[in-house]
């Protein structure tokens, strides 16, 4: 950091403190989004290899479920609507590629083949040779084992519960493909079919029993795991396999704070847009187990921590060991406030799911809410700090990831799950499309979903006088694009402010574009030739102008929260250019 910057930051901090002390709550003239932005791949610089960590589950569960819920429920910040926005944002309200996130489908539409293949680089374990079982696990939610194939690649193998063949394996792989395409780091997951005769026990392999003691593993013991699942009609077994990620695993990441032994880990996780926006994506795929237990940091070449989401068996209609139930997604496992509600009402207080009737859609799918799904009230099984702090802007960003998937892409992801029947695959794809539309509808309704702003010199509107400085602005209305409303059903209320040029205009108008590309004319409503200050010599701060637009639904006049477009006056061109965006 250079000295001048440090001094200016101190001045700003001092000014802020003074403002706070005076109780005026004054803000800096420059909006935060126009300050320094995040730097692409800044967190992929080499670091010393951190120690692997294996945190205990119960203390963190208590922390999340009790302390986290109390502090969230009684939060003054939430009550007064002063939530902090995510911090790692570009001036255009987006993120940059990093060790957490890559710009994939939302930026460049992936082909259906790319979606189906996802993060995989092969075809799963090599079954031409022996599959050596390295270790097995019979305790825990889902028993399984780790194997090494003939090529020396290692995989985690997990099975479907009895009576629900395909359910968790398909859910795991489908969600893997969707999260990958959305931009998150995930391991290479496959639906894997093998015959029992291929299995052998590696020398020195052990098994950890219910008493957490390691014992020598025998093939008979390993094959006991197979008794917990169903075989295919031809006698082979089906499982979901997850290839070990490159680089040694270093334990999970948490959805709050930073990892102290990772100098690259800069933004506190609860203020990362990717993790906050993950709420909308998780709700879409009903990944109720989206918590630190299902994450992993890996020390990858050339020597930094890449942050993975892992194990998606508890998503879509699968609850890993059984189908999902209505409660999952609507109440935390330890719902502090719902529990207190029941305590003080003698059990008469009920959450919506308690009166819901439901039945398994199909044994290969499990149960997943369709048209009744409410993206705003969805909850994972355990409180997640980043999700709790997510604002409407974060939800909208996540919904843009969800909305980036076409019907064909969703079908391609479902195909990767290798469900046993076409009707089941079609049903699951249809439910995902319905849920996608609901996610989009919900979050796009929370903001004015206008994107890709461009300036035009011509107003193309005779009522707005170009001679007075009026201009046109072109943008995409994602609500129109997604079919949530038509151009005729909305108008755009706008306010334009450029103090240095004495411009303070406001108005409303219907768009004049076609499709989702809209155009609105901005300018003084009345001719006022007396006001035309000199715009050729403005200071950098004086060049800043602000355009606030709201989508207003007709005929009821409901206005969405606004989008703020930051403009810079370019004196040489005598026009504005877009330099920032806040939803």
């Amino acid at each position, binding site marked *: *950091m250079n000295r001048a*910057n440090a001094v200016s930051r101190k001045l700003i*901090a001092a000014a*802020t403190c003074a403002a*706070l002390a005076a109780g005026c*709550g004054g803000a800096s003239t420059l909006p935060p989004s126009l*300050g*320094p*932005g*995040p*730097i692409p791949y*800044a967190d992929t*610089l*080499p*670091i*010393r290899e951190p120690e692997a960590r294996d945190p*205990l*589950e*119960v*203390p*963190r569960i*208590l*922390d999340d479920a*009790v*302390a986290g819920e*109390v*502090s969230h429920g*009684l939060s*003054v*910040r939430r009550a*007064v609507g*002063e939530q*902090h926005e995510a*911090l790692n*944002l570009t001036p255009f309200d987006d993120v940059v590629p990093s060790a957490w996130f890559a710009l994939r489908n939302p930026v460049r539409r992936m082909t259906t083949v790319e979606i189906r293949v996802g993060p995989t680089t092969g075809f799963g374990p090599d079954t031409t040779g022996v599959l050596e079982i390295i270790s097995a696990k019979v305790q825990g*939610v889902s028993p399984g084992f780790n194997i090494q194939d003939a090529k020396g690649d290692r995989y985690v193998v997990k099975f479907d519960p009895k009576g629900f063949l395909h359910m968790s394996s398909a859910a795991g792989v489908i969600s893997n493909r969707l999260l990958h395409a959305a931009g998150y780091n995930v391991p290479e997951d496959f639906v894997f079919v093998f015959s029992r005769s291929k299995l052998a026990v590696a020398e020195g392999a052990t098994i950890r029993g219910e008493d*957490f003691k390691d014992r020598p593993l025998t093939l008979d013991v390993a094959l006991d795991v197979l008794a917990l699942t169903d075989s295919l009609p031809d006698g082979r077994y089906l499982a979901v396999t997850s290839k070990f990620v490159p680089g040694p695993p270093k334990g999970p990441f948490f959805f709050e704070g*930073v990892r102290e032994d990772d*100098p*690259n880990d*800069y*933004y*506190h996780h609860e*203020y990362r847009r990717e993790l906050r926006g993950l709420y909308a994506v998780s709700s879409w795929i009903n990944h109720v187990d989206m918590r630190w237990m299902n994450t992993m940091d890996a020390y990858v070449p050339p*020597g930094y921590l890449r942050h993975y989401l892992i194990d998606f068996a508890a998503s879509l209609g699968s609850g890993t*060991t*059984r189908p999902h*139930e209505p*409660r*999952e997604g609507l109440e935390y*496992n*330890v719902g502090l406030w719902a*529990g207190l509600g*029941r*305590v003080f009402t*003698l*059990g*008469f207080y009920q959450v919506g799911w*308690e009166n819901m009737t439901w039945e398994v859609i199909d044994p290969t799918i499990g149960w997943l809410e369709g048209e009744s799904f409410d993206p705003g009230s969805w909850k994972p*099984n355990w409180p997640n700090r980043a999700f709790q702090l997510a604002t409407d802007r974060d939800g909208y960003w996540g919904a843009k990831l969800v909305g980036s998937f076409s019907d064909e892409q969703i079908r391609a992801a479902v195909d990767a799950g290798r469900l046993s029947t076409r009707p089941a695959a079609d049903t699951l794809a249809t439910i995902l499309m319905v849920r996608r539309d609901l996610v989009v509808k919900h979050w796009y309704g929370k903001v004015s979903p206008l994107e890709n702003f461009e300036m035009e010199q011509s107003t193309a509107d005779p009522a707005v006088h170009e001679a007075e400085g009026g201009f046109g602005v072109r943008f995409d209305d994602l609500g129109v694009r997604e079919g949530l409303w038509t151009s005729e059903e909305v108008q755009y209320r706008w306010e334009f402010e450029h103090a240095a040029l004495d411009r303070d205009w406001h108005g409303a108008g219907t768009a004049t574009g076609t499709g989702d590309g809209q155009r609105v004319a901005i300018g003084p409503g009345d001719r006022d030739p007396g006001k035309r200050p000199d715009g050729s010599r403005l200071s950098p701060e004086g060049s800043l102008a602000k355009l606030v637009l709201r989508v207003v639904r007709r005929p009821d006049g409901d206005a969405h929260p606004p989008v703020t477009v930051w403009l810079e006056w370019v004196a040489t061109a005598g026009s504005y250019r877009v330099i920032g965006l806040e939803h």
Partner: protein
Amino acid sequence: MQRMSRGRDRSRRTVSIAPWAIGAALVCVAACPPDLSAQDAGATQKDPASDQFAAADSIRNGFDRPPARPATDWVDVVEFPLKVIAFPFNLLLVKLPGWVAGQVMTEREPSGIVRAYRSMENWGFRPMLRTSIGPRSSLALEGQLFRFEPWYVHSAISMRGSQRHRAGVLLADPRYSLSAEARWQRDAQVTFYGIGPDSDTNRGLYSRDYWDVRARGGARLTRSIGVDAGVGFEDNSIDDPVWTDDPSIYDELDTSRLYGANESTRYVRLDGGATLDLTKRRGFQDTGAWFRVEGAMYRGISDTDSDFHAISGIAQGYLPINHRQQFALRAATRIARADGGAGIPFFHLSTLGGTRSALGYSTSRFTDNDMLSLVAEWRYEVWRDIHDIARTEFFLYFGEGTVNRRLLDISGGDWQASYGVGARMAMKQRLLGVAFLGFSDEGVQIGIRGTWPL
């Protein structure tokens, strides 16, 4: 920047101390690992990786980017006192239990104590801690010898001085059971408030030492009906309480009229019981009714001039409203009658109060020949594990109970009301524990235990 500086300093220091390091190496050459000199030589070389990390640090420090976390604002100022208030609660209710759970659940190499415990258990002897072996709560240590199953020997002693030593044999399968046991027990501090529904709140304590030798058999005749019967011998001696300065019954009460307080008593005992279980378990809830009747006949032997019998009955009903809420009702009675001689020893009379009846009163608060207790509970689920493994229910209860010489002598004024709240933690097939807060005219009682009468 600091990392980079530290790296450079270290390499300089290593070079400067190399002469004395070499000297020290020469002095202790016999004891030093053979590769030590190689390590030292390696440390003096420049580590390219360190340079790489230092360069990365330098780049990172040069970044101009948004803050890592939001700046403090007025909301933080407002929330600060709330956080200060919440801090001790967080420490006590979240962090401490979390730390304890973490210690318990951390996988680690077993310590010497754990290894010794496991060795004993593997051999057939299990030491364990209990919450009570007498009528009053107390930490107790018990040793269980089960190496020669079905034979067993158990021995326990509590911090109040109670003791229990027993040996026996138990043969059981799902339909039949046969057992024989010889036991010597000392209940070191038993409370006694006098006889009758109007007994004073002043209590006295006594100790009871007794031998109990018995044989029992049980059979499950159908899924719903079970019977059991047994024969036994007991030898009772009453004395001052032990290991306490609390007042004795001999100081507080007139014990001259309490049969059994000033003499040893010996009985042979015949007893039998029958159970009618019409309940069904659905999820975490019982539905239906459960009944049990028991009878016991005591005949004095040797120089004990006392014969008596006692009959008790319990009826429990469960009325689910839905799978989360239900009523539970319980009626319990015990009738003790003298059949001749000096009467019934006071410690074999019927009692009311404690963790199984009239929860708002202390243990055995009321004593007389007959007892009647009625309790109604409203139980409701407040939490259920997402995998349906366990659930917590709360309950509100109201109960009326009394004691008297005869049930027919009970009048309206004798009834003792008790009410309160509690929580039950249950697995699908068994109850894990109950905690309750009971209220009565005499104050508040807090109880925690592993089973529950209803």
